[in-house]
């Protein structure tokens, strides 16, 4: 709103009907884009235009448009969620671009994330990692009072830093090895830092790491690309913690 202006763009977008089809880049011109728009609103404008021309609009995932649900995400000019730091695609604004720019937009690419259509990918492998142990096994009811186990505020804050992961998959998409280690380690860290997570600590580390491998994710070799693109600034220190958890669990569980 401050310095409202509008820009003209060329978009180079990956189009792919479904996982079996071959994909290719298509070019679109888009004029008069307000710099106050979000990136997804810019795509909305493109899709309204394509619809009116009788063409197939670009499929892309999104829901909250507030940077918290983790559903949006594409690779923009080679960077997951685009050039601005610590934001999701829905929170990227067009004031980050200049008139005349060509913007290359691709889906998150990884062996474990099959493309469903255009920019929509299947990230259900991340859910399966959580299903294999990313929880505390308590049934509803019959739990102790919330204050019965004091947790120092620094510990709670550290756990919260890890818990802030939104599961968008940008870490996987930007890793040359397609590793899901930042994601997995965030959950393992949150729970191993808290007293509630202790009982299943070793089993959790073992089974989550095993699932990660089984789902076709690669291994971390310290590129740190994940940390750089993470919209929630999840630290790779979590990966170190996960590795420690895993080694300890392997040694002591045999």
């Amino acid at each position, binding site marked *: *709103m401050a310095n409202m202006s509008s820009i003209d763009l060329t978009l180079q977008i990956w189009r792919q*009907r*479904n996982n079996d089809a071959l994909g290719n880049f298509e070019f679109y011109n888009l004029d008069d884009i*307000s710099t*106050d*728009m*979000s990136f997804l*609103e810019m795509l*909305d404008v493109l*899709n309204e235009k394509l*619809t*009116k*021309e*009788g063409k*197939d*609009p670009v499929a892309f995932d*999104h*829901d*909250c*448009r*507030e940077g*918290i*649900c*983790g*559903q949006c995400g594409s690779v923009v000019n080679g960077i997951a969620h685009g050039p601005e730091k610590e*934001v999701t695609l829905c*929170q990227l*604004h067009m004031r980050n671009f200049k008139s005349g720019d060509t913007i290359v937009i691709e889906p998150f690419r990884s062996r474990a994330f099959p493309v*469903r*259509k255009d920019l929509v990918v299947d*990230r*259900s492998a991340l*859910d399966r990692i959580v*299903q294999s142990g*990313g*929880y*505390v*096994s*308590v049934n*509803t*009811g019959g*739990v*102790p*009072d*919330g*204050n019965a*186990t*004091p*947790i120092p*505020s620094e510990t*709670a804050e550290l*756990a*919260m830093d890890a*818990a*802030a992961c939104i*599961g968008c998959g940008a870490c996987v998409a930007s890793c040359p090895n397609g590793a899901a280690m930042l994601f997995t380690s965030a959950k393992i860290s*949150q729970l191993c830092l*808290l007293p*509630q*997570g202790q009982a299943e600590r070793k089993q959790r580390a073992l089974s989550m790491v095993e699932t990660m491998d089984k789902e076709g994710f690669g291994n971390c070799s310290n590129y740190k690309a994940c940390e750089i693109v993470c919209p929630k600034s999840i630290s790779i220190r979590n990966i170190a913690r996960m590795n420690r958890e895993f080694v300890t669990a392997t040694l002591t569980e045999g």
Partner: protein
Amino acid sequence: MELNSHIPSGPLSEKWDNHKFANKLVNPANRRKFSVIVVGTGLAGAAASATLAEQGYKVKTFCIQDSPRRAHSIAAQGGINAAKNYQNDGDSVYRLFYDTIKGGDFRAREANVYRLAQVSNNIIDQCVAQGVPFAREYGGTLANRSFGGAQVSRTFYARGQTGQQLLLGAYSALSRQIHAGKVEMYPRREMMDLVVVDGKARGITVRNHITGEIESHSADAVLLCTGGYGNVYFLSTNAMSCNVTAAWRAHKHGAGFANPCFVQIHPTCIPVHGDYQSKLTLMSESLRNDGRVWVPKKQGDTRPPAQIPESERDYYLEGKYPSFGNLVPRDVASRNAKEQCDLNKGVGSTGLAVYLDFADAIKRDGEQTILKKYGNLFQMYEKIVDTNPVNEPMMIYPAVHYTMGGLWVDYNLMTTIPGLFALGECNFSDHGANRLGASALMQGLADGYFVVSPAVANYFGSTPIDKVTADNSEFLASRERVNNRISKILKNSDKGPKGTVTVDEVHKELGKLMWDNCGMARNKEGLKNALEALPAIKDKFWDKVYVPGSGKDLNQSLERAGRVADFLEFADVMIHDALEREESCGCHLREESQTEENEAKRDDNNYSHVSVWEHKGEDEAPVMHKEQLAFENVTPSQRSYK
């Protein structure tokens, strides 16, 4: 339509226990013989799925998003209430009950609200046990803050991401049950119809968003946890896929719809700034603890804020409500902002905004203190609007936020269709005409973790349920209905854009009609006009809208079109409801019903009831029934914030 609320007997504080004791149970060995469908994985749906599966029922769970973790609940920022009285500041179950019923302007059911306050304490314990990283004091105990005008500190929070952490807790409990094979999870499925067999809810028809396939799923009971319908207005703080479809389909099969015109308008949102805008962003209400709200005194004053001297500013909330000032409740703050803008005193490029100014607070407490308190909100604002609230006042405007109306349910959360339950924002039950902050999260989890499982057991234990499978003729008929509707929406897709109108354009038109006539302030004439204008918008949709693509694969235009088609039908009953309610209450100013000082005037003699609407057929007006509200423990009083 019979409306028996099944409120248990006995004193208020004993009703829930009496009820649980009187309820039928299902023995653990028999539970696996019963199956339950849960639609939605927000707080209500994820919690219910996990809890019912833990107890041994077979559960099938559905959601629209690619993962259950992304439900709209994830976006809640502020916090969740509970009557723990950890701060020893005089809180109690009774006080939480009282604040909630009063905040809802005495349009909710006493027994439900009391139960909500009772189970609120179990919710916090449950979430802590799951590893939800709530904020803690240095000594390790749980931290609390105050919220939404309450005089006690009873709000638990996890930074500004409380909804996210609570949902991830419920999602992890759900994930554990998926892993154990007790829950079959169906993401990227949209419920398109309810299947009723012999008068009981027995299943759903869904569309698989990836393959386009229409699937039938049967069960012994169906739980709708599908959230609110705020997106009928097009612009709201809701996630893009929030919709009314599931509830509306249930309504067409005979489920009563209660208080559809009760919509909460949140006063502190980032204003609309262009016709391309797709959603509105909420700024936490806590900003009004330090920000001062003002507009220029002169109408149509377009000077930048810094050039408007102190003497030419109108701090209208402080002037009008000296004892509450900027901290008046949501409905009062919203209404007054609109009033100023209607008087042509609004600011910004559209004139639909007021200032929220931190200059005095920064002068008083220093920039660092204010940034420490609100830094992340300031950043969020700056990211979206591109101005820094330290240097220039924020601009805010009210926006549609939460829907208090929903499917009518009894004390067991059962709708007027046996075997169909509604939980969380999808039902109408606990918030009356206005929702206090931090109470929706509480209700979603209360329903899902604690209330619905005894209710489901009681239903199974007391109702004969025949075996029904998805090849029953009702399922076939339902699939046919769904297929026909999809064909109708896609009728000219292969011939190219016959009409030049898009789904969004019609949705925007509907949204404007609703906001202008059935929004924060309503009057008889406007509502009548809106009712008359609606059919033309509906016709435009069915005659002119071009929806590209086919039903056989991923087609987001088709998904949106289906939801808008339902909003168009639903808007009709919303307006009917607003017309009937000739009183002001909660967020709803009926312009004809005001005090001499232009405040909202409730009319307890004539409107102390829940309005429950019955569907009578496609081209017939809906019929209203009343559930009279009885207040035995509190005395309805006029709310005053002067």
